[in-house]
């Protein structure tokens, strides 16, 4: 009898857990998405950046990017030759620096230029920093269909953004966001971010290709991971002005 009770209890517990899991709150789903995207402790990746204009003309650049957590990032351009050495450092609290090798000078970039496009790409500084969605956005509506969550996000009170709304489509099985639609202040869809070639590397889900498309201009930017290392124990010293100017 005891054994039967235990089985029934276990079964009920399992049911409860399943129900609980199925009814995971939208806010939790958003946090899960953030956790998946920002999972690596640090990363050292070589990126191939392809800028594609409406006519299909491609402009290619290469960049070495070091990232620790979600808030410290240092990027150095490797090519084209005339941009080689230009460096960019992003630190918590919207602190940003730019290194210009021809002048041999590091300059701070004002924090309020976050809606400016980064180096001719379709990513603004805000886009590059916005891997932690739940900090700024809350879920207004969530639906689930064909193995995908569709989360409609609205801005939290007191937060500012260049966008009025974001719609994220994420896989229900692993919370990986495959598509992000960004809406301008008039409520029109203005940009789309698509994450593709998702692979499990070192226990992390990594999209080896990320494409941001500006729907108005038809311009696209694809960032492709060419080389990658994760959790190599990058030191905080790498994320300094001194290292930037090296």
């Amino acid at each position, binding site marked *: 009898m005891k054994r039967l009770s235990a089985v029934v209890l276990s079964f009920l517990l399992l049911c409860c857990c399943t129900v609980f899991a199925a009814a995971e709150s939208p806010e939790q789903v958003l946090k899960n998405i953030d956790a998946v995207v920002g999972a690596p402790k640090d990363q050292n990746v070589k990126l191939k950046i392809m800028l594609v204009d409406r006519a299909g003309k491609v402009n290619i650049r290469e960049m070495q990017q070091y990232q620790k957590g979600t808030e410290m990032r240092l990027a150095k351009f490797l090519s084209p030759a*005339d941009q080689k050495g230009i460096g960019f450092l992003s630190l918590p609290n919207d602190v940003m620096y730019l290194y210009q090798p021809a002048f041999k000078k590091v300059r701070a*970039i*004002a924090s309020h230029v976050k*809606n400016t496009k980064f180096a001719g790409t379709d990513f603004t500084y805000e886009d590059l920093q916005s891997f932690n969605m739940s900090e700024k956005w809350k879920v207004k509506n969530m639906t689930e269909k064909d193995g995908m969550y569709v989360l409609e996000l609205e801005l939290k009170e007191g937060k500012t953004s260049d966008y009025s709304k974001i719609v994220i489509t994420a896989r229900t099985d692993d919370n990986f966001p495959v598509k992000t639609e960004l809406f301008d202040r*008039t409520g029109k869809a203005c940009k789309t971010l698509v994450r593709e070639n998702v692979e499990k590397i070192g226990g992390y889900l990594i999209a080896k290709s990320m494409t941001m498309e500006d729907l108005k201009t038809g311009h696209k930017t694809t960032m492709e991971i060419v080389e990658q290392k994760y959790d190599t124990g990058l030191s905080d010293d790498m994320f300094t002005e001194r290292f930037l100017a090296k």
Partner: protein
Amino acid sequence: MLYIGQNDRIDFLVILNKKSYAGEFKRCGMNSFMHGFSRFVYKFRMPILAVTALITVFLGYELATKIRINTDIISYLPDTDRAVALSNEIGDSFGSNELALIVVEADDIFNPEVIKHVDLITKTLKGMEGISSVTSLTDVMDIKEGADGSIEVGKLIDMDSNPDISRESTAKLREYTLAKKIYRGKVISPDGRSTLIAAFLAQEARKDTTAKNIKAAVKALGLKEKIYFGGTPFMMQSLTELMINDLIRLVPIVTILIVITLFLSFGTIRGVLVPLVSVLISNVWVLGFMAMCGVPMTVISTVIPVLLIAIGTAPSIHILSKFDEDPQKRYGSTGEESVNAFSEVGLRVILTSLTVIFGFTSFIFGSYLTMIREFGIFMSIGVFFALIISVMVIPAVLSYVKVGEKKISIRKGPTFAERILEKLGKFVISYRVPVLVISFIFAVVGLAGTPFIKRGFDMVDFFKADHEVKATNAAVQKNFGGTKPIQIVFRGDVQNPALLRQMRKTDKYLETVEGMANPQSVSMMIAEMDDIMEGGRRIPDSREKVVNLWFMLEGQDMVNRLVSPDLNSGLIQAVYGDGFNDAVMLSDLAAYCAGMDKEFYQYSRTNTTPAAVTDYLVAEAASTARFDLLKRDRKAAVSDADVITVLNRHMKGGKLDVKKAAVDIEAMLPAEKHDSFLVSDITDDLLFVNDTELYLPARVYKTLPDAVEDAEPVRFEVEHTGLPLIYQHLNESLLKSQVESFIYALIFIYVLFVIQLRSFKFGFIGLVPIVLTVFMMFGIMGFFGIQLDVATVLCGSIALGIGIDYAIHFSVRFKSYSVAGLPVKEAVLETLRTTGKAITINVTAVTMGFFTMLFAGLVPLQHFAILVATAMIVSGTGTLTTLPAMLLKSNPKFLGKSDRKKGEIK
């Protein structure tokens, strides 16, 4: 054109009146043809009417659903035109070549509420179809050095980051914005009371529709500030509205005039309705055919419906008048006279028709301008349609109508008009030499006025003085310089300092040009950034530095508008105002661009640098600094040599004392012309004199002893375009069109005249009155300041095509009297009494038609009306005076003997 149609219609009317349609034609020559043709029409009248109805419904549907109005001036020139091709290239490479300007006026633009409204308009425009980018106070790039030494490339006012702006912050902003010359007079008026929002239209956008949408969207915001809409797209939109209004208003007015004229001429309802319906059907056909072919209505083709209706009345009067001459012939007991009458006018009808068609085809061969060619094509087609309708459809309709006999009152004795014309004839006979001398004097005076004809094409001239467009342009021009875009393209590596320096210098040159304002280029932004990096608004001395600065500009809307995506061409965009001398500005600009150094070599300065290098640097700095002086005082009597002297005074050991030199150069202008930017502007111009890494023009570099033979040069090309240049090309082609189409028309008409009169000499004499008329018309244009524009350019050939008809009627009639044996003087008197009367009524009717266009909203159409109506009066008078005087003076033996034998008075 409708001459023919209505001539034929009337002939058929007469024939049908006598119920003699079924065939009493003489079976020979032309008569045989006419007879056969009439039988054909009668036999197939049902299918003819059915096909006509189908065509009318089909083309009516095409007209209603597909007709477009094209007011895009650029498209009036062929795409191969250099100014147009470059403008299109700019649209492709830089995303836009058209600017819609919105000016917001308030007591203080920096009032937080007004700024919010400016932002609201900006965001509304940015979200609209057809707009590629927007520049405004709340969406303009700002480059500045932050308090912590940071470099800031962002928005001047970032409403997204700081939506709750306060009075205090806007006070600081006001001070900052007005102190920065990249904003003052460009985005904000110097008094801070008006601000400019510039919307760049996408290349593929329909400009008039986008302009209409912009107006509607901004007005829908319900803002309390005064808002003006300026620039070509808004002008195009107003033009479209005016064209539609003109069509809606003018067609009924012309129709009413025609109804009155036809009623007075025919005296029956049928006589009014039949010709009227036929001209309306021909209008539906020709406009529907245009729509079907995808050819839009232009400023010029608006004239087609009015012209088709207006000149169609004249021949009706002519023919009726002929039958009135001897009513018994017309309504006699047999149909023979009617048949004879039809036969007599048959050939004349066709020849007159060909004359008019050829008159209009002269525009096809003679014009470089698409819209004038299209006008020629569709006007000719319209005439052809009218001919078809008149000779086939109208008789077919009338064959079903039960026709009653018309009561005829036979007038006894000459009418008032006939008495006047007889007196005129006697006067001409008595004073033929003075008449010829006076005609000659008129012709000479007219010709003398030709050089004074102003050639002008400016869209703003299409509008009347009190039109909103003029007020708007004036408001924009007052605070922001103008509305007409000027573009200078630099083709080459836009990140190269040599190119950027010439670009920067050209910016400064443009500021010295009267009427020019607001030059913008990427060189200005690079200079602003370099000021933060190195001190001094200048172009850095190396390409690497430029690329480093560029990194922060990439992706900015403003940069995308001024630099092509492949970085192979850069643009200077400026605006030009109304009321300035475009021709001088364009020739100066062309000379400036042509004279610019466009091949440079890199050169590193050493202690033994040749004097030629320093001399070049000093001369280059001097000419740039002089532009800064001329910007403040266009009449400043300062030459490059004067500035060079000052610079050389401050050169010590190959180094220039920039600060002292700048102060001394400033002193070359009187104190009242100084402003707070002058010294710093001059300083910026001089800094590069002390650079070590240089770019030297080929003309200097190749003379240097240490020049490297196979050094790689930096080359670029410079070309300019913009609305004033496009206008200039239109002007030039307008004159070419006028001259060429006139010559073509003259040749065609002379040939047809000779065929009709069978005499080269008579053909020449017949041309005299109309040529005199055209000379007179040119004189009127020259002396009364009516400029040669898109509409008036048509006058010469239209007047020639229509006016020649008077000469044909007069000459043919005169010849028939002569060959019948009447002495010359009597033949002249008789012709004046008969055909002269018809010509007088004809002139009155056509003139009334053209005067209708005085009510047009478009100014060129009003000028067109005045000129053609005047030409018709002069041409009619010339036909009734100069032509008989010439006939009297010439030898009438030119009439062939065979003609004399078989001749009879008709």
